[in-house]
């Protein structure tokens, strides 16, 4: 369920690193807690986002929730799929429904995050 090569936050986001590019999303646990997702608000290209700070929000029928970035960096790409099909975030949060790709400011930041095993223990699954 939770990919081994991703790193996880206590706020239920994940980051997957390839070279100096980080792909960021929310976890399966997060989408399940939120329920039916209707809006995803994401930053514009070129915006600098900061680790542990909010950079967007996800809104479900029930509630709106901030998304916190696991890492710092500049936004290179935003997942346009989510503008028209926000429900994809309920279906494939670890894959097709990633949120943004960033150019990592300091790749070492992921060392402070949880492994898949740690995260699963954290959420009690």
């Amino acid at each position, binding site marked *: 369920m939770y990919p081994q090569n991703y790193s996880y936050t206590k706020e239920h986001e994940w980051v997957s690193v390839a070279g100096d590019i980080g792909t960021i999303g929310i976890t399966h646990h997060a989408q399940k*807690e939120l*329920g*039916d997702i*209707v809006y995803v608000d994401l930053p514009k290209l070129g915006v600098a986002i900061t680790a542990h700070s909010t950079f967007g929000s996800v809104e479900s029928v*029930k*509630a*709106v929730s901030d998304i916190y970035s696991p890492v710092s960096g500049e936004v290179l790409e935003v997942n346009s799929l989510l503008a028209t099909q926000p429900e994809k975030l309920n279906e494939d949060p670890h894959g097709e429904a990633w949120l943004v790709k960033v150019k990592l400011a300091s790749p070492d930041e992921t060392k402070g995050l949880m492994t898949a095993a740690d995260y699963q223990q954290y959420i009690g699954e």
Partner: protein
Amino acid sequence: MSQDSAPLKQTALNAIHRAQGAKMVDFGGWDMPVQYSSLVEEHHAVRRAVGLFDVSHMGEIDIRGPQALHLVERISSNWAQKLKIGQIHYSGLLYETGGFVDDILVHKVAEDHFFICVNAGNQEKDFAHIQAHNTFDATVELSSNRYTQIAVQGPRALETLQKLTKTPLAEIKYYWFVDGEVTGTPARIARTGYTGEDGFEIYFTPSESARIWRALMVAGEEFGVKPAGLGARNTLRLEAKMALYGHEIDASISPLEADLAWMVKLDKPDFVGRAALASQKDRLTRRLVGFQMTGRGIGRDGYEVQIGGAKAGWVTSGSPSPTLSATGTPKNIGLCYLPMQNTAVGTEFEILVRNQPVSAVVVPTPFYKRSKG
């Protein structure tokens, strides 16, 4: 977790909800299912087929005695005298100020017996309020513990429930009830609900809860029955523009402001709150209206409403509408208070959504009305 918080109260169906995978939340001190699978799927199940709600957290108050009618007339804004035996109406339990103690369903069981269904979180307060006005030859009993209440709601509700009872359900008119049986267990069967659909609310002894719930799940299987949580209950009642205590109504809001004038009988000689409402009637300053978002965003409960950049009111309930969004573009709806002069359908205003003004427009209500027949 704080040490001094009281343990959450549980209904007799708590274990069943957990076994069915419900996500549980603290709802006014009760451990209740907010959703089982998907709020939207549960919502659609009720609109298109049938859904089951455990609403045993609701309170029940029995008023009996030779002057039971007099006490009900005194504490209730609707005209209980006009109820026939077996009939139900919606009413307001009001303070002298005209604000709501609670909103209630009054059932006339006999000439000397009324059964009142009240909100879970208000039941002790309601009971004390009614007692305080009981200067009549009537007894008031808080009887909530004697009842499990299950709401069977949706266009297939009748067929589902009919499999479990010999009581002829089609003969029960909307807002009427009979004391019959469900699977042989004595049950009060009322054709009422909080979803805008046809359906029944059944009251029976808690010891039979699990068995009857399971029997309803089996009876509704061929129609695609789903257990439905408080999340779907909220979106369903919002589409039908039914008030929720603590949102559309509370101690500071009158039924006239809440667009519930129809259940206030000012021609009734006397009831608690009458004088305040009679004087408020022709000088209302604000009223509840329905809105639809025209900008991108959802005006949610408590958000500020602005007209011309100045605060003009607040959102009482707001959500995407699963029914209106099912075909075509997503629609976000809600209810809010606006100054009287801004309540006309078509009036444009803004709602502060996370500090950004987003456009909305006053629309006719209810947002959803079932087609009958």
